């Protein structure tokens, strides 16, 4: 009976011994030269927050889903987003005015709960709710995780017939939360001649009049 699998070939122990020494020396040498060559290369680190050519936010891919923001001047309070959200992190409350118009009571998004799946932004028919490319959102108390978008009482729900143009993404969040653009202000370009100003100084002057869109 011939065994199907041939017995393993045992290497000559003496040859194996010196082969091991040779391999140890040569592989160490090889590895040392490789790591040595890395000392002459430029590191690929992006020096967030303040030593980048441009803010990291602008380096993110188009499809990146950052913090949610809603343009209340385009929001019809249809509640589609709140119903679509698997976690229920969007809470919208409205109340009726005597003259028939509706008024926002709350429009809160709980960033702490949000899982950034993008279903709500997909469901929004009027491009009011959208993901920005903001990611700098750490806070020091749990209450601050909730972003309250209703900035003043008496903010009316928009009518689907006449909607103002969408404000630039990120501008609403930046206006809403003064401390938010903190890291952005620190992100100055390393060499001045390329770009005129670091960024449109979001939050530096405080919220720039949200009433204008109502």
């Amino acid at each position, binding site marked *: 009976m011939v065994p199907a699998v041939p017995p393993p070939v045992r290497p000559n122990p003496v040859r194996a011994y010196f082969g091991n020494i040779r391999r140890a020396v040569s592989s160490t040498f090889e590895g040392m030269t490789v*790591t040595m060559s*890395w000392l002459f290369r430029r*590191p690929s680190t992006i020096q967030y927050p303040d030593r980048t050519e441009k803010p990291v936010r602008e380096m993110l891919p188009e499809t990146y889903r950052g913090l949610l923001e809603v343009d209340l001047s385009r929001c019809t309070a249809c509640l589609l987003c709140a119903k679509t959200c698997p976690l229920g992190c969007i809470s919208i409350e409205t109340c009726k005015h005597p003259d028939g118009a509706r008024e926002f009571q709350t429009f809160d998004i709980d960033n702490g709960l949000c899982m950034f799946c993008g279903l709500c932004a997909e469901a929004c028919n009027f491009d009011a709710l959208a993901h920005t490319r903001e990611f700098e959102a750490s806070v020091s108390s749990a209450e601050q995780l909730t972003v309250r978008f209703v900035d003043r009482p008496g903010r009316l729900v928009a009518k689907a017939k006449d909607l103002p143009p969408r404000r630039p993404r990120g501008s609403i969040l930046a206006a809403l939360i003064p401390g938010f653009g903190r890291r952005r202000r620190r992100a100055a370009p390393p060499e001045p001649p390329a770009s005129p100003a670091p960024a449109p100084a979001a939050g530096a002057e405080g919220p720039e009049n949200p009433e204008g869109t109502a």
Partner: protein
Amino acid sequence: MNIIQHVANLLIRSVFHADPASWPWTWLVQAVVIGIAAFLAFAFVAIFAGPVSWIERRIAGRIQSRIGPNRVGPQGVLQWLADGVKCWLKEDLVPAAADRPLFLAAPYLVFTGMFGAFVVLPFGAQVVAADLNVGILYLLAITSLVVVGLLMAGWGSNSKWALFGGVRSAAQLVSYEVPSAFSLLCVVLLAGTLSTQGIVAAQGGWPWDWFIFRNPFMFAAFFLYFTAAIAEGNRTPFDLPEAESEIVAGYNIEYSGMRFLFFLFAEWANIWIMAAISAFAFLGGWQIPGIAPEQIAATKGWEFVGWQALSWTIFLVKATFLVFVVIQIRWTLPRLRVDQLMITCWKYLVPLSMLMVLGVLVLLALVPEGGGADTILRGAMVGLGLAVVLVSALRVRRTFRVDREHYREMEGRDLWYPPYRLP
């Protein structure tokens, strides 16, 4: 005469205007001078060990294509200071289950064992704290104190991780003591003395006078010693006592704050010590090319100081270069398994280092020093050393160029993140 006695005598003569031989307070002045010397050595250790940690982190960063600490002070040079102050102000914990005396005493032993090695390190011509006539034996003995400290830390913590870290480190350190002692035996054979200054004096300033290039066996013994020294310093690839993947943090797992810092401190300083031992035992130490030690001793005044400074610089450069090699090895090679570690020592390093002792001994008996065969051997070994340097430089250049081609290919691609940085 010892340099410390020199300084003390100088002080007594110039400040107290007394004769050192008959003055009753000579011993006190000497003790004070020794204390100052010890403090200077400590300052050297502190000032060296700190920046070495920063340099290591920067080099590690570059090898891993990142930057490393660069925020604290210019380019992050004060990183070690921030770490030190923070650790100093951190709470000091002693586990309730620990063996309290052992736990508290371990950092002392580790630090003292490390620091004691500085006594016999020859920093420059005539500059050594104590030129013991049993210098090498003393070095081997006093560095073993670190093992005791680590074992005490591991056992005293009463933690399973720490225990295994401690006994592993003990097994590893005592095992690698054997090949390192054998390799240093080769040096002693050639130098004919155990004193560290004597070993340096037996070599010369030029590379062909160094022990490493004396004959092929010494060349191999250097690498054997260097490997064993890395293992004795608990450095990767032999850092099993603190292998995070297996035993969390090893022997120092229960230590916090300053006590932990002393372990780190000893580790960094140990790199320096093993680099310094390799430098003075194999690479000619502080010897200045073209100048004999007697000529330096004969000079006076500022000329003497100048030669001293030059010899210091040469020694420090050699040792620092070896420190750099140790750091680079750490970030190049993966960690060994515990059985591989023991096999490496007992089946490879120990027999090979015995062979080197035998080879050096036979060559010493057969090849007369200064003869034709000796010159040929030295020339061949210097050529071999140059060849190693040259080949590695060429390999580095080739690796660099091959990768640059890859980078060039990536350069035109439309990537959402910044393209690869060209080397």
